[in-house]
């Protein structure tokens, strides 16, 4: 079994179409989609994101990270939400992705989620990363 992230994107056309849609219907369709994945035992996580105008961008191009409101004007596709599913094959991930209740101007980018087997256990940097994760896990457990 492999985990995939379904990344929801929309271009200007998709955003415009979304604004035309009946919000209740959109919510109901998404609810049915999520439920179908839950009842198939494949849904691990999923979240929707609020409007991009509420968000901000941290730009690492300069010497110090720069927090800005934009520049959304230059971003052609907006990232609106995601699902993480665990399935038996890439084809199965494609099958679930193509069932999402989305319309013209919407895209799902599907990416495999890496797991421990992608990284050798003896790699120094992986171990450092894991050390950090362990520390976080301990903090979370103590919280």
């Amino acid at each position, binding site marked *: 079994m492999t985990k995939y992230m379904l990344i929801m994107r929309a271009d200007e056309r998709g955003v415009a179409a979304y604004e035309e849609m009946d919000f209740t219907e959109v919510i109901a369709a998404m609810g049915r989609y999520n439920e179908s994945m839950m009842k198939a035992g494949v849904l691990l996580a999923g979240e929707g994101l609020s409007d991009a105008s509420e968000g901000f961008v941290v730009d690492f191009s300069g010497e110090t990270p720069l927090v800005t409101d934009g520049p959304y004007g230059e971003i052609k596709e907006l990232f609106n939400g995601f699902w993480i599913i665990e399935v038996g094959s*890439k084809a199965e991930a494609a099958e*679930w992705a193509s069932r999402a209740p989305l319309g013209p101007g919407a895209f799902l980018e599907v990416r495999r989620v890496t797991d421990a087997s992608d990284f050798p256990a003896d790699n120094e940097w992986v171990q450092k990363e894991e050390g950090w994760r362990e520390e976080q*896990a301990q903090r979370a457990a103590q919280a």
Partner: protein
Amino acid sequence: MSHETEERRIDEESVRRSGAPGEVSAPAPAVDPALVAERVAAVWRIESPRIVGALTRFVGDFAQAEDLAQEALAEALEQWPAEGVPRNPGAWLTAVAKRRAIDGWRRRERYEERVAAIAHDLEAERAAEAEAPPYDPDRIDDDVLRLVFVACHPVLSREARVALTLRVVGGLTSEEVARMFLVPVATVQQRVVRAKKTLAEAGVAFEVPPRAELPERLDAVLGVLYLIFTEGHAASGGEDWMRPELSREALRLARIVAALLPREPEAQGLVALMELAAARFPARTDAEGNAVLLADQDRSRWDLGAIARGRAALERADAIGRGRGPYALQAAIALEHDRAASVEDTDWAAIVAVYDALAELSGSPVVALNRAVAVSMADGPAAALELVDALAGEPRLALSHLLPSVRGELLARLGRDEEARAEFELAAERTQNARERAVLLAKASGRG
């Protein structure tokens, strides 16, 4: 026109519609037969319980429904490369299978008789449903549940339940099931054929068990899923210490059952237990595939997402408010391990307390043995050895490697090395798993 014939007419129409040219869905029409085969397999994995469930209700016979679904799959593999994949592949497969059923009745000139029988069944079903709908009235969900209960029916042998569940509910092919269990494909096929025959002979109804029988029958279902999980978790035979794919499939099936029976605490408890055990999979083998025991595992490799999902499932089980059953209790133990940064950091007293509750419920000597291990961590090896020695005459442990393996561990910690060595050697002799034997022999030679 009766409701039933109308339903069939719509089905025939949907076959024509979905077969029409130009009605091809995304992803783009795959003409490469290999790609189509992948797509068919993916659709089958997603839809099989719904398809076989709906067909069983339609033809009134589970074995025939499964055969019809397989025939429809074969037809898809032939047609889809040339004509493209239909917009709704699951509906296409169901409709084709139903059409084949109707053709069969026509050929056998039992058409009228059969239609009358279906009408009767549907009426009876509707009346029964009106009386006491035990679950979600959504019929599709009920079909899947019925299928789960049929595949795990007590008239079937354990092997048959496992094979049938993985094939019909899990949507795996016989080849995949065979590979997972390291048995020949023919063996799996025979098990399925024999299972279908047994179900037919016993006249097993396609139903969610009535309330009075539900606890026992659900227990059987969860038992099958747990068996599949543990077979992957600590393979009983063969060269590999784990077959995680098998466990992950069991987990997926447990999630299905828990989603369909959200008010059953043990269904949630089983999901919790599996998630919390699967969280440690990345750390349970080293780079060479050798077993790494809990104490030596690199806990930074544990899957934090799985731990969070397991914890959430245990909370759902608790929220139902009917107390913790054996699976939820085992999940609680697993959670104590998963949240500890190290063996020393583990709350062993809390684990002993959960084992007390578990021992009270199950009375199993294996639980008593595991409790003794927890006691050894909380109160030291001497206290635990007394408990283990009290289990020596237990017939259910007589042939198992577990007792000598735990005894060896405790004796080694007490510095009684010679006695420990003998116990580890005995345990190595008894285990069926090659990797585990290697670990035990290493301990016997003082390298463990």
